[in-house]
């Protein structure tokens, strides 16, 4: 399915479709006796000039955003192999259940008696996540993976503080392959973020780890499988070493899709793990959110979890417990991204115990197969990963001067999204490829054929590749100019004249 409609056509902004006095959807008008606005609110508080929202009829609004939508690549179009993002199929039934009136219409301050279904769903979702991760408690509050990480790091802080070691344990370690949110989160929580090197196989270098471990370490943040897709096979030893110096083990759960139902973070020695419901549990990525980043912990960290906690009371009812004196605080305005939880719960109930394991196995199978199909054309410096493999375009670049970025752009012409590129940082010209379990054998083959074709084009017609994409709504965009000449909102013509 190569090519997009609207190739080369610019869509005017919604503001350019606006015309004075036009109306979209009619809203309810009040039926009480009204008073002039300035009798209700003193004139000095009243807005003098209305916000210049667009004035567009409903059907034109629909056409505008429909046209915009057609310029997006998306999972329902073709393979979306963004490594570490787990762009699996989003089951449509999830979109129906999260919109049930009893869920979508629920005000967060509704009395607990009128929210029993929601609270029970949250409690049972947490129970399933506990079992999958081998953890003792779960909070569903974090709104995304990055907020889950922050929860994890604040848990480290609260735990060490409670033991009188908050002042001395200043360092959070992570491998050089780590996602950028790991060091950014550690810094946001006031820790010194320190990188440790990987060994030749792409795993934590045990010697380097030992050298870095002492009583100043708060914890180690370690994705598993790591961002190279490689399982940290020394994980039990790593956990033991970190625990021996009193540190905590944190697992970034970005890659849990490879492992669920097969092995559990809790059994590997992790104390904290965050989940990404929008990756592993099929909730849609929404063009960049909403996500949901629950966090599971072992019992010794449970008292510090954020408030409120969903609890099942002795009488069988469900409630929110705010009275948790050792809690580190709160991250979300309410209880987390509930609508995302409903989707994930629906998915997990359908998969059930066996489906969850089979999903992980199929994700690993699909990646192994795709890796097999691609490994002739692209380097694989750290070998085949579990659910994802990180290829490198170094040889191709040496041979043809075609860079990974060019390959990525050319893939768009073939109707696919590109893999994650130039990440992880320890792989030059990286192409981090994650097919997920929901792709057919035939779709993987189609993608592999496109990659081979591009590798051939790099030899025979390099300019075709280096100037790609050719079939997309726009060609390569000038990112430098975007940052230098900032244009972050529509300029109304009257402002330009003024």
């Amino acid at each position, binding site marked *: 399915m190569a090519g997009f409609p609207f190739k*080369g056509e*610019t869509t005017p902004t919604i503001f350019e479709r606006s015309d004075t006095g036009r109306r979209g*959807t009619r809203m309810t008008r009040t039926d009480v006796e009204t008073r002039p*606005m300035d009798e209700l*609110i003193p004139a000095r*508080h*009243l*807005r003098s000039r209305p*916000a210049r929202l667009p*004035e*567009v009829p409903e059907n034109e*609004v629909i056409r505008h*955003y429909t046209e915009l*939508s057609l310029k*997006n*690549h998306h999972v329902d179009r073709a393979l979306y192999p*963004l490594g570490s993002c787990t762009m699996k199929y989003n089951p449509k*039934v999830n979109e129906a259940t999260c919109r049930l009136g*009893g869920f*979508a219409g629920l*005000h967060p301050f*509704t*009395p607990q008696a*009128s929210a029993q279904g929601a609270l029970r769903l949250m409690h049972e979702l947490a129970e399933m996540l506990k*079992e999958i991760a081998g953890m003792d408690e779960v909070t569903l509050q974090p709104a*995304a993976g*990055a907020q889950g990480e922050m929860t994890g790091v*604040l848990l480290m802080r609260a735990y060490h503080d409670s033991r009188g070691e908050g002042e001395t344990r200043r360092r959070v370690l992570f491998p050089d392959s780590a996602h*950028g*949110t790991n060091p*950014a989160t550690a810094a946001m929580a006031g820790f010194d973020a320190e990188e440790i090197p990987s060994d030749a196989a792409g795993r934590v270098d045990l010697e380097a780890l030992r050298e870095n471990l002492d009583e100043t370490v708060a914890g180690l943040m370690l994705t598993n499988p790591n961002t190279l897709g490689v399982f940290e*096979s020394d*994980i039990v030893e790593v956990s033991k070493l970190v625990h021996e110096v009193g540190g905590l083990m944190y697992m970034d759960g970005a890659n849990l899709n490879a492992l669920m*139902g*097969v092995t559990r973070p809790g059994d590997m020695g992790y104390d904290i793990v965050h989940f990404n419901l929008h990756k592993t549990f099929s909730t*849609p*990525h*929404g*063009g960049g*959110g*909403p996500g949901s980043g629950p966090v599971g912990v072992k019992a010794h960290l449970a008292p510090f979890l954020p*408030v409120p906690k969903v609890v099942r009371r002795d009488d069988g009812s469900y409630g929110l417990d705010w009275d948790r004196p050792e809690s580190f*605080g709160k991250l*979300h*305005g309410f209880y*987390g*991204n*509930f609508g995302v939880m409903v989707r994930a719960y*629906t998915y997990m109930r*359908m998969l059930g115990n*066996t489906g969850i394991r089979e999903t992980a196995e199929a994700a690993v*199978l699909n990646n192994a*197969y795709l890796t097999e199909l691609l490994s002739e054309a692209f380097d694989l410096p750290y070998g085949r990963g579990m659910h994802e493999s990180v290829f490198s375009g170094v040889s191709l670049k040496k041979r043809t001067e075609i860079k990974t970025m060019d390959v990525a752009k050319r893939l768009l012409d073939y109707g696919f999204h590109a893999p994650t590129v130039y990440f992880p940082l320890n792989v030059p010209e990286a192409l981090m490829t994650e097919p997920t379990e*929901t792709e057919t054998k035939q779709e993987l083959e189609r993608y592999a054929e496109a990659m081979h074709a591009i590798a051939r084009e790099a030899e025979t017609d390099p300019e075709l590749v280096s100037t790609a994409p050719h079939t997309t709504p726009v060609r390569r*965009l*000038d*990112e430098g100019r975007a940052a230098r000449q900032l244009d*972050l*909102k*529509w300029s109304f013509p009257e402002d330009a004249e003024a």
Partner: protein
Amino acid sequence: MSFIPHSETDRREMLARIGVSDVRELYDDVPEEILLDGDLDIPAPLSEWEAVRELAELADLNRSLVCFAGAGQYDHHVPAAVDHIIRRSEFYTAYTPYQPEVAQGTLQAIYEFQTMVCELTGMDVANASMYDGPSAAAEAAVMSRAVTRRSRVLAARTLHPHARKVTDTYLQGLGGELEIVDSGPDGLVDTGALNGALGDDVACVLVQYPNFLGCIEDLEPLAEVTHAAGALLVVLVDPVTLSVLRPPGELGADIVVAEGQPFGNAPSFGGPVVGLFAARQKLVRKMPGRIVGATVDTEDRRGYVLTLQTREQQIRREKATSNICTNQGLNALAATVHLSLLGREGMQEVAESSVQNAHYAWRRLEDVPGVTPLYPETPFAREFAVATEENSRAILERGFDAGILAGVSLSRFESLEVPDGLLLAFTEKRSRAEIDRLVDLLAG
């Protein structure tokens, strides 16, 4: 059921090509001692219908009530066209626009969103959104510290208690603590108290507009004393009211944040919603989160990209302005479509109807014994607080029986230091008859 597409033949062929006989051989790197023994202890698979039935049963355990609760989340009508657009899988099954050539739909919609946020708040620049209002407030505090290189953060007592708690949590790690500035008897921030608390080590002051208890703060004098001390004024707003009230950008705010739920998003038990974040131009390079900018392609056509990424974690790592990695893309899209559908007049009508309904309720409650406005002389927009002689939780329980969510109990929030009572909120959806029922309920 599961979503694995392979036939037995496919699977066999794939395994043969890989050169293994069983998929479990691909797990050889996992030490035997940590392999799970047997199945997970969670329920067996369900068919789609069985799952739908179970979910519908759970949803039915929640009661739908006529909603007079606000406190950050408001019961506005969301036009059907909003959900139609956000259910287009071109939008909801896409991800962060890492390849802008095939994400122009998402990028342009965010650019339009940023424009609308600037228009409503009166600010120069806005980002692509945050998780929610409270985390946007917290990020604003963190950003203010970085901008001013100062450490103390002040907040009005009438800041949303949840925003206060979230901000406090975000500041914890940085060695800061939120300090509270009290209000006067009129419910408004006491300028004298604020002046006393300010100093050359204060990074910012967080206030809410209208404040948590509904009172419309006088932002100009607050901005004046805050700026005189070299600090930034951060204003958390109810964005619906900005179609009636003067925007904080005209009143001296440096950063404006909001809970954007009322624009296009269902309450959904508090999430997912969308945080709005806007600032003055000179602060743009210190803003957290994704920002979309317009540029041109190689053929000089207009197009959109994520810009100023050197602020962000994927490049700056531990020196990033924030660890935030996504925005609330689909929720921001819902807000954009909602605001486009309502437009200039429609949004104003929604805000004015909400204000009219609130003031009608206020007038009716004047005659109700045992119910007293907390701040009888102070201007309010669409939300106000009353003290109640009857225990507010008892009133809510009676309301529950009558199918009414009679506001939010003030006794939930010890940190406000106000008497027991209710915070009542009004939207365009509330009819006169429903408001009369609320008044009857409060009258006992």
